[in-house]
Structure formats: structure tokens, C-alpha cells
């Protein structure tokens, strides 16, 4: 394997980690409040608000129904508005984040749904504000499912990031397409696959370890 290819592999691995890391962090940061609102604004929830709930739910559904490769190009104007360019690794982070937010929001919603109503009732009886119930009861009680959900989201992002090549984002997926597919270089193809497998394994093991630490 020539030296330049090796540096390309390193670069692509870094690009994938960078894209997945930043978009994953942003999706968790922005998806969590949306997920919390999805559950708390429901009828009978602590922040009951029918209109907001219906609006958020349909936005999330729209986000979830657009195939990622289409989302990638469809929001190019938005991407340009946010990061100043529509091409490159940083530019790929925008659609990755936009795609992962509704995904994670639903995961948060499902995780919080599992919490027995009695705990919310206990919080209300103690005089907790809705924000305190979210912060001190809902999120801590759901933390194991939230960590597991974050793991799933990040691994999904590794998957999505393979398409980042479409907007010149680079990454391992792009490398595999360019060398492995277009130039029939089986070695590169297999190497990228191996790196991706290791990457996903690492993320999963890390997620599981954190989840185990948090469960009592």
C-alpha cells in the first residue's frame, strides 16, 4: 500500500470521526429537548400543549421520512447559510446533525415514556416545577436508556457519514466508494470496512460500559 494511500486512510478515518463526533454531540444536545417536549407537551403531560406537540411531532416525522442522501442535497442552502459553504467535511456535519436530531428526539421520547407516572406524581406532590421534574426525575431515571439510545444514534451517524462524499465531505465511506468501487481496489475496500467495523465496535463497547456504570 503506497504511503499516500495510507495517509488518505488516516485522513478519512479522522474525517469520519470528526463528522460523527460533532454531529452526534449536536444531535444529542438538540434532540434531547425536542424529545423531552414531545413527551411533556402531550395531553396529560406536565407541559401539556396540544399545538406545540402536534407541530413537533410532524416536524420530527418529516425529518425521519426523508432519506438521508436526499436530505444531504436538499438542505444545501441551509448548510451554506449555517457554515458558509456547502462543500467539505464541516459542511457535511449540518445535514448529519439535521438528520440525527429527529432520530434521537424519538429515542428520548421513548425512553422517557418508560418512566412510571408515579415518579412524576411524586415530583408534583413535592412541589417540583416542570423543569425540575425533567431535570431531577425524568432524565436521571431514563439515563441508561438515553445512553443506549445515544449509542444507536452515533452508530447510525457512522452509517450516514458514508454518504458525505456526495458533498465532498470525505470520510471512510467516500474512500471506499472512490478507491474500492470506482477503481476496483479490493484492498482499500476491505480496509475501510475493517476500520468501520472496529469503529462501530468501539462505540458500542463504550456505550455499553457507560450504560452499565449508570445502572443500579
Amino acid at each position, binding site marked *: 500500500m503506497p504511503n499516500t494511500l495510507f495517509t488518505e486512510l488516516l485522513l478519512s478515518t479522522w474525517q469520519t470521526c470528526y463528522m460523527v463526533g460533532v454531529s452526534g454531540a449536536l444531535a444529542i444536545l438538540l434532540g434531547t429537548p425536542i424529545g423531552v417536549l414531545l413527551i411533556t407537551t402531550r395531553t396529560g403531560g406536565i407541559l401539556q400543549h396540544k399545538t406545540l406537540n402536534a407541530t413537533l411531532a410532524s416536524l420530527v416525522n418529516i425529518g425521519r421520512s426523508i432519506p438521508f442522501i436526499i436530505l444531504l442535497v436538499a438542505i444545501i442552502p441551509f448548510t451554506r447559510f449555517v457554515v458558509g459553504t456547502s462543500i467539505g467535511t464541516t459542511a457535511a456535519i449540518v445535514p448529519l446533525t439535521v438528520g440525527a436530531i429527529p432520530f434521537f428526539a424519538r429515542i428520548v421520547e421513548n425512553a422517557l415514556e418508560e418512566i*412510571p407516572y*408515579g*415518579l412524576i*406524581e*411524586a415530583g*408534583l*406532590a*413535592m*412541589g*417540583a*416545577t416542570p423543569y*425540575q421534574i425533567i431535570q*431531577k*426525575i425524568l432524565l*436521571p*431515571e431514563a*439515563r441508561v436508556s438515553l445512553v443506549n439510545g445515544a449509542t444507536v444514534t452515533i452508530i447510525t451517524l457512522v452509517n450516514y457519514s458514508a454518504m458525505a462524499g456526495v458533498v465532498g465531505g470525505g470520510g471512510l465511506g467516500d474512500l471506499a466508494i472512490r478507491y474500492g468501487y470506482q477503481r476496483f481496489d479490493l484492498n482499500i475496500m476491505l480496509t475501510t470496512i475493517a476500520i468501520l467495523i472496529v469503529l462501530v465496535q468501539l462505540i458500542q463497547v463504550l456505550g455499553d460500559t457507560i450504560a452499565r456504570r*449508570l445502572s*443500579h
Partner: protein
Amino acid sequence: MIILKNISKIYRSKTQVVQALDGVDLSVNEGEIFGIIGTSGAGKSTLLHSVNLLEAPSHGQVIVADQNLTMMSKKDLRLARHHIGMIFQHFNLLASKTVYQNVALPLKLLGKRQSEIKSKVQPLLEIVGLTEKQANYPRQLSGGQKQRVAIARALACDPQVLLCDEATSSLDPKTTRTILELLKKINQQLILTILLITHELSVIKKICDRVAVLDQGKIVESGDIIDLFTKPRSNITKQLIHAHLRHELPQDVMQRLSPQAGEDRNPVMQIRFMGTTTAEPINYRLAVNMAIDINILQANIEFIKTEAVGMMVIELLCKPDKLSLALAYFTKQQVDVEILGYAKHTIH
């Protein structure tokens, strides 16, 4: 300490309207343990939840510690709730937090400093006897221990009132007893007013000073606990007392018992009297003066709080025509009598 004025609660859904509470008036004195009993679906839970407005009543007023909760803003209501403790049937502890952290939670919500929280939580853990378990998680505790944690948590903000929502209903009889004893202890030590709901008469009997019987959203009877046991007025109260008693009636008597009178059946009745000494002369005189033989099926002294109430189930070995004679005699002697049914003759 707790005054409920004309509380009604109506649930409306698209298909039906359910009146869960219908003009309930209730007044609980300071330092009292007040019980509300009723069968499931009577509205007990709705009533208890309206005291801290977890369920806002459709009509009526709730006054706790001289504050009218129904007139309050959301913010003031939250502040007031800090001083109304509540415990639940399923404990409702946070699984992700230790015993200590669970008890500390209400104080944290108020933004208290760590040192202050610690000085508050430690004595509470001592009261409920869980100092050694403070670093454990709820998962590692028994049901009784969980309820102790919940009690400590409910006491964290020095409440004047404690609401108990079927607090012993998922516990075994022995644990129930220890939890009730604990409630009695904190009631006396902290001069804490306790309002509890239950479907178990044994709970009421053990610790309540006064009791109200709730049926179909209305209070059908209320008053002193001993009066309730010795002079039940409403049918539902009688049913509850029977249900409580039936558990203890021997199987063979149960099998012989039927609601209809008949030539081949003897009346079976429960007689109730205060104290422990009056039963024997009554039975003796009945036998001698009226020439009615008595078969004592069951006799026991129920301890209601600290008072002893004699209860006896007797079978009168007589024809139905002599029954009125016996009943007249009991009335004259001011003994409460209730006919439980008529039992088929046994072959002697």
C-alpha cells in the same frame, strides 16, 4: 388542619361523564390520623389527590393549614406542596438515586445547601431506621424499607400534613403493621396530621382516630372509629365490617350461612359491646330467661386503637319466632346486634 368544602370532581370524556366526587365535606383536625375507607372505585384516590390539588376539583375549596389552595397561583401552590408530604402505594422512589439522595430530593428542589440537607436527612433516616442503608439503591431494599424511605422523603420539608395513598396496600401484614406503627410514631412525635386512604379496615382499626366512609363519591358515614365499628349505620360500612369479619369466620359456618330465614335455619348474628366484661351475662340471661340456647361461633376482642371492643358471633338455636324476642332483649340491653344470615341446622 385540612378542610374540604363541597368538593366535586367530574371526569368528562367524549363518550361519558363520570362523577368521581360528589359534594364532599371533610375536616381533619391538627395532629389527628384520619382515615378514608371505601371499596375500589369509591373515589378515595381522587379525594386524596384533591387535597394537594394533584387532581384539581371541579368545584369546591381545599384549605390546608389555613391556606386556601384552590385560590392559589401555580407558583404558590408549588410552595404550599413542599409542606404537604405524600406517600404512595408503589413508593415512587427514584431508582437512579440512593436512599440518601431520595430523601434529599425535596430539599434539593428548594435549593438548600449540602450541609443543610445533610443535617436534615440524617435525623430523618434515623427516625425511619435506615441510617445504615443510606448508600443503597431502592432496588436493594424490601417493600417495607422502600416505604420507610418514602416516609422520610415526605418528611424532609417539615410538612404539617402527610397524605397516605394506600401506603400499605402492597405490603404483607407484618410489614404493614410496622409501617403503621411508624406512622403512629411520627404522628405523635412531630404532631403531624395524617390523612390516609385505604380499602382495608384493619389499617383504619389500627391507627385512625376518626374515619369517613366513601361510597360512589359521597361520604356516607363519618365519625369516631369505635362508633363506626360498634354502630355502623350505612350499608357499605356494614359490608366493609362484614368483609373484615368474614375472613375470620370458620369455613363450615360460612358454608351453612344463607341470607334467607327458614324453619330449618338458625339465626346467626354478630353482637358488639364495649369493654370485655359484658358478654357473658348477656348470653347467660338469654339462655336462662328466654330459654334460648346459644352456640358461640366466634368471640374475640377487637382492639381498635387502644379501646377494646367485644365482638361475638352467635347462633341462636331456636325457631324463627323466638328471634324477635331475643332482638328485643338485646335492644333493651343496648347491645348492637346485626343478623349475618341464617345457618342450616347441623346434625348433632
